[in-house]
């Protein structure tokens, strides 16, 4: 199952993806792929990881190989598998990939297509994959997220956040293979009942994550969310993951 965590910038997608990664790391018998699809690399930072290589570095290496004479498509496919493996950072049962920032503007459609296929193929080897998407709808529009099964839409307690989530949901229905989606309210402060009773959304609400001092402290101190102790936010995230069948 491939799940994309989407939403407006600054609503806490990355923190939720990082806490989800921590949850997966504690489950025996599963292998999870964690993809930091934000070029800023926020998820890796939240997990305390400095990737030695990104997917974009792999793309550039492959382009160099092609320029140096790599022509055979089969060789290209196995080379991409090899180079992707060198970009994986492993932690327990987690394999973490960072998309990186493209430096080269050139058009290498064939490489891009094969790379996308390779990532999909790689995800297929895992029990689950979670993608921390770039803020907004750009990646949904560009079909970067086309193979996802489920969209976890995050919003803060603002109408603007909710509207962006709904837009992503609408575009996602058209541009991805998703079979389901759920809405998560983040950083809710009391009282939240009135907000929830007033909202009108076509997306199923999965849960409300409260403002959490532990999360805030980890964030401020730049500590890895892989080390976060049990706390109210983590408990809600855990129950959401259970609800959508991820753990």
């Amino acid at each position: 199952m491939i799940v994309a965590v989407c939403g407006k910038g600054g609503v806490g997608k990355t923190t939720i993806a990082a806490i989800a990664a921590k949850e997966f790391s504690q489950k025996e018998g599963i292998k999870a792929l964690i993809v930091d699809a934000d070029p800023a690399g926020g998820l890796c930072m939240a997990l305390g990881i400095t990737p030695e290589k990104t997917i974009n570095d792999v793309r550039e290496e492959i382009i160099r190989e092609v320029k140096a004479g790599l022509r055979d498509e089969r060789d290209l496919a196995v080379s991409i598998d090899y180079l992707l493996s060198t970009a994986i950072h492993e932690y327990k049962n987690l394999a973490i990939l960072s998309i990186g920032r493209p430096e080269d503007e050139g058009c290498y459609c064939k490489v891009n297509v094969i790379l996308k296929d390779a990532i999909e193929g790689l995800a297929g080897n895992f029990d689950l994959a979670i993608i921390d998407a770039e803020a907004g709808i750009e990646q949904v529009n560009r079909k970067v997220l086309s193979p996802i099964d489920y969209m976890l839409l995050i919003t803060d307690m603002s109408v603007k956040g909710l509207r962006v989530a709904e837009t992503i949901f609408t575009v996602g229905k058209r541009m991805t293979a998703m079979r389901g989606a759920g809405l998560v309210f983040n950083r809710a402060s009391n009282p939240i009942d009135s907000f929830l009773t007033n909202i009108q959304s076509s997306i199923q609400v999965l849960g409300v994550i409260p403002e959490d001092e532990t999360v805030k402290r980890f964030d401020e101190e730049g500590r890895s969310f892989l080390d976060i102790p049990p706390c109210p936010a983590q408990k809600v995230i855990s129950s959401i993951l259970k609800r959508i069948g991820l753990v």
Partner: protein
Amino acid sequence: MNPQDSRQGNVRAIFEARLVENVRDRRVAKLGVFDDVLNQIFAIKEELKRYPDFRVSKSGPELFWEEESTLILEEETAVELGDPRAGSLMTLLWGDPSLIEDGTIALAGPDLSECTQRKIPFGLVILAGAQFPDEYEFFRNLKDAFYAVKLKGFMARMLPSRNTIWCRVSKDAILQGFTLFHLGNAVIDSIKKVPGVSAAQVIMVTSTKEQVEKLKTVAEGAKRIVDAMVKMYSELNFDCESCDYRDVCETVNELKRIRDRLRKKVGDRQEDRR
């Protein structure tokens, strides 16, 4: 160095030179693109035979291992073969079937259960004995056959442009008795399914990075030959003056024969069109 060491060194050098000559005399039966490379590989194999941990086994149904595409993460890995820093080589060569010791799987160095370190060097040389009408198509089929090898508890990643292979073997697989001979057997089985192949043999090295590097130097020569051949087939450009592989074609007669055949084929096609 004392005089005795020096004498022993000379004797060894003479012995090795003779060994190479013997191997060359015995092996080269017909002309093929890799004849020189094969000679060098066989000479290295003869050297490896002198080491106490050199073993040979024959492929057969008793070495069958379940096929499965496996993803192996670091925490479940028992042995990592061919990490780029440890030394890595993978090469796929062919020649006349009479040159190949069919079904032979040779290993120089520790097998998986004997490894004292988690990351070890790995060299994998696959030799196919075959007769075929088209080298390029045959080469592609051979590669596909090798890429198709998937074994339960074994994961391989390859970088053909650098003759590199990087494998992981799971703890479970080793507990269940998986050895490098099972891998060799699966490779031979797969290679022998390629049309035209009548013999296949595998040589594996896990002893030292130096041994792997020695094979790699030889394999790089083979890669230049393959690259020259691929260029000929894919570009159909026979302007030798501007070609980066001119030196290769000048030393490998078989490549000249391929070039002449292709040139004739292209010429015939153009003639037909007219």
